[in-house]
């Protein structure tokens, strides 16, 4: 039962952050395509946004690790 919880936590908890990161990067690509001169600025802000989105996935990972390794 615990193993099921671990697997499901990570699987479901990774879905929406992955979507969020994909959307972010897609919009960043579009913006760079429109204005190649601002590429570094857009890239820096994109990395920042991706860190926020990824943090949610990391929370799910930490919960999964806690369930698995804390008896």
């Amino acid at each position, binding site marked *: 039962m615990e193993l099921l919880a671990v697997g499901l936590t990570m699987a479901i908890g990774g879905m929406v952050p992955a979507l969020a990161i994909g959307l972010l990067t897609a919009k960043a690509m579009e913006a760079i395509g429109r204005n190649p001169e601002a590429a570094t*600025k857009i890239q*820096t802000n994109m*990395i*920042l946004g991706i*860190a926020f989105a*990824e*943090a949610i996935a*990391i*929370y799910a*990972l*930490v919960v999964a*690790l*806690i369930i698995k*390794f*804390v008896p």
Partner: protein
Amino acid sequence: MLHISLPAEIIFHLDSFPVTNSLLVTVLLTFLLLLVSFLSTRKVARVPSGWQNFLEMVIEAFWNLTESVAGKKAQRFFPLVFTFFLFIILGNWSGLIPGFASLGFWEMKEGRHVLVPLFRGATADLNTTLALALVSVVAIQYYGFRQLKLPYLKRFFDFKNPIKLFVGILELLSDFAKVISFSFRLFGNIFAGEVLLLVTAFLTPLVVPVPFLLLEIFVGFIQAFIFAMLTLVFLNVATAEEGH
């Protein structure tokens, strides 16, 4: 069998204060940083070359980034933010040094013979990342107070209209959430990386762990960069003068 421990293992006691393996590594890293800074700034040449050139390159790149975010306040924020970056990048990469999960003592724990590693990546311990996150958030409040004096509290308690009051309460909550977010983002990334490396080394010790090591080097850099940049952005927001 694979032995992964979420909390850092205690290696010895200093008069009832438990010293963990990651604490040992943070102390070593601090001394290393101090030593390198001291030795590098003793004879500063007008035209840099070699090590000084490399350091100036790194500092200039980060300084340009800081200036593009904070503008005129960059000089005030740069030392804190760059120190965060240096300490965290070294802490993240320290878990990749060979020997870190393998050198240790054999101890009896709950009737099983387990290896207690002598060293552990500095930021793979929630205590370290929590400490860094607390320093960051407290520094944000400190700089905010120093810049705006008492009106800084208007960011959280604005009694002009109920909407602004609600937004202020949300800001207060979000500052607490920042502590959790900073510490868990850094801890999760680095600890998960260590687990990943352990598992790949356990399954296929030859060749296959190499791309994962490269990934971990990259992730270590990115997480240090993210921590420093987010601190800078929040500092900038906290010290922003009213009325744009």
